[in-house]
């Protein structure tokens, strides 16, 4: 029976919401169990603690007609029951079996009701039966019992369940995007009203009707803002949906590296826009595996340093003034400043007088890796420069802090959403552009004498440093044959990179609803999306990270 034919098929999302955390918790316990067994602790209470949760997952899966999940949960129960009785069977093999099974269970639940996982589930059940059969205590009885039980519940029942149905609804994420577009149009219309009100006020002067119009416009704005925040909340997902895969990954990487690592996760309930979370997964995977491979030392090295053999890796999320901060902390050896200095010198960088903070910052530079040997796990995929690039691309920042022998901390600060971006609207050659405020350090009046030309590039003094200042028209490809001098420049930042952008006018701050790129706009070298402004004009949202990397608009 598939979930669709099941009388409770409409409750699939409730099933996932309830069972996914249970399965993930069971997985965490098994990782803990493996560590305990290795340390010689029978950890019987840990083994007993999963019983209720596995049983719930099994029962609920059965109710939903999700046989692969039911079978895997049942097999895990059987394995646990055996391990509770037969202490001699506890060990790495048993732990690996339990961890693999829970990993499979988590995947199955997360992708429910996708078909085609039946084979993986059946393989696992076979594996568990093999494990059980290897003990004299219990032959293949569980398998027979399962088959006997499954008969007799063939009727499909009714599916007209509309009344008492679930309070949770599954929505295709694209429909939330569509709603957001409608909201964006509402916001545009509202600002058109506001603009009209201002013009009328100028023309006819204050009067009672205009006062009322003003109040109506303000009330409309408040309503739209409420709609916006409600809609944003529906797009949010708990960070735990990404954190959930790390216990198993850390265990696997540590195992492969001969390390002992305990993962501590905090703040999993912190929520982020799904679109941000989706793009956060890969950089986080890299930071976490990096911490295990390069940060935390092997047990022998830790012993020499007077540290406990087991390293601690912390993964923390929290909300800080409208942004989400994620930290990856390890208590390993810390960044090797000598090696960074050496590498910097071979790259021809001037680092003789560089302090620790400056040196640490260098690890985000392209091609900068000090790992002695390319590790099998951390070496694949992206480097730290790519990690930093992805985080900046999300409108976020990444910082590293490290103390020799004590550990390394990566701190990521991310916007809660990508769908609405607080921006500075600027004008260049009568075209308007939105600059995400996370990348705007300052706006400065451009005094002609303050900008000098060095090697054909504009340079100015900003906060005690020299920064390049580029003409907005040249970078953004706006065409104006005769240009009056630009009156302002905006200092844009991303990581350690900074650059001034000369513009004609600073229009103001505005929350802009991001729309996808219109293919007619050409190659999106410096543009990450478009938005519609209050007057109905389309404005490009600038991709500051790419501009700082030297991109220009293709003409």
């Amino acid at each position, binding site marked *: 029976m598939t979930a669709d034919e099941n009388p409770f098929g409409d409750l699939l999302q409730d*099933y996932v919401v309830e069972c996914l955390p249970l399965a993930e918790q069971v997985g965490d316990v098994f990782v803990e169990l493996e560590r305990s067994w290795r340390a010689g602790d029978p950890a019987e209470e840990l083994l007993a603690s999963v019983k209720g949760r596995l049983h719930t997952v099994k029962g609920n899966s059965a109710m939903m007609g999700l046989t692969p999940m039911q079978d895997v949960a049942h097999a895990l*129960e059987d394995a646990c029951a055996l391990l509770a009785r037969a202490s001699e069977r506890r060990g790495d093999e048993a732990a690996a079996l339990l961890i693999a099974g829970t990993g499979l269970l988590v995947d199955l639940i997360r992708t429910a009701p996708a078909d085609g996982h039946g084979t993986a589930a059946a393989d696992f059940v076979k594996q568990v039966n093999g494990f059980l059969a290897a003990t004299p205590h219990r032959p293949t009885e569980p398998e027979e019992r*399962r088959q006997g039980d499954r008969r007799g519940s063939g009727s*499909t029942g*009714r599916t007209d369940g509309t009344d008492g*149905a679930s309070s949770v609804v599954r929505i295709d994420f694209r429909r939330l995007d569509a709603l957001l577009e409608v909201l964006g149009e509402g916001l545009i219309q509202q600002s058109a009203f506001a603009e009209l009100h201002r013009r009328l006020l100028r023309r006819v002067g204050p009067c009672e009707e205009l006062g009322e119009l003003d109040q109506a416009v303000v009330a409309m704005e408040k309503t739209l803002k409420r709609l916006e925040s409600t809609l944003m909340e529906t797009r949010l997902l708990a960070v735990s949906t990404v954190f959930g895969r790390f216990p198993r990954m850390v265990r696997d990487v540590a195992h492969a590296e001969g390390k002992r690592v305990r993962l501590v996760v905090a703040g999993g309930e912190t929520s982020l826009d799904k679109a941000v979370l989706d793009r956060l997964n890969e950089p986080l995977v890299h930071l976490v595996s990096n911490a295990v491979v390069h940060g935390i030392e092997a047990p022998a090295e830790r012993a020499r340093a007077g540290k406990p053999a087991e390293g601690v890796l912390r993964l923390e999320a929290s909300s800080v003034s409208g942004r989400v901060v994620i930290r990856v902390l390890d208590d390993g050896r810390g960044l090797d400043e000598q090696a960074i200095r050496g590498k910097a010198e071979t790259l021809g960088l001037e680092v003789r007088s560089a302090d620790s903070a400056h040196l640490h910052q260098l690890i985000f530079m392209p091609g900068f890796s000090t790992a002695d040997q390319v590790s099998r796990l951390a070496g694949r995929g992206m480097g730290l420069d790519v990690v930093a690039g992805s985080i900046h691309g999300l409108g976020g920042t990444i910082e590293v802090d490290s103390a020799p022998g004590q550990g390394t901390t990566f701190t990521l600060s991310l916007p809660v959403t990508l769908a609405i971006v607080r921006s500075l609207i600027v004008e260049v050659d009568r075209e308007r552009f939105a600059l995400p405020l996370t990348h705007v350090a300052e706006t400065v009046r451009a005094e002609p004498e303050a900008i000098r030309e060095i090697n054909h590039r504009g340079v100015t003094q900003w906060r005690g440093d020299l920064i390049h200042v580029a003409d907005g028209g040249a970078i953004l490809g706006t065409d104006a044959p005769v240009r009056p001098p630009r009156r302002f420049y905006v200092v844009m930042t991303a990581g350690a990179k900074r650059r001034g952008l000369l513009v004609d006018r600073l229009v103001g701050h505005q929350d802009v609803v991001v729309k996808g790129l219109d293919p007619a706009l050409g190659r999106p070298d410096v543009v990450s999306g478009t938005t519609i402004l209050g007057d109905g004009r389309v404005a490009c949202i600038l991709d500051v990270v790419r501009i700082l990397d030297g991109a220009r608009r293709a003409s």
Partner: protein
Amino acid sequence: MADSFLVIDDSKLLHQMYRLIFSQGTLAGSTVQYATNGRDGYGLLAANPDLTLVLLDLNMPQMNGLEVLARRQAERLHPHIPIALVTTEGSEEDEARGRAVGAWDYLRKPFQPADIERLVTRARAEAAGRT
């Protein structure tokens, strides 16, 4: 008088399923109360002497189904109210223990709406036979 039921189950998903079942067909219009653990469920049982049927999950934190049944038997609380113990495969030993402490019947997961309807019909018939 419309039927009233008590569901004692720690799974919110199961509550949703019962809600669906009790809103359909001959069961539509019945009153259903929900508890998420045995302790609260026992309190609701004590407060409602007119329940048609109680659906009691076996596997729960804070007083499991067997503990609820045992306490109810010891305290002779509303012995006329039928309590069906809801189990999942693999709980056969517990089912035998449930019988010993006065479980009226069993409902084994996965069950269908029709299974509940059958239990309710029987419970009504037995109640009618008593009066």
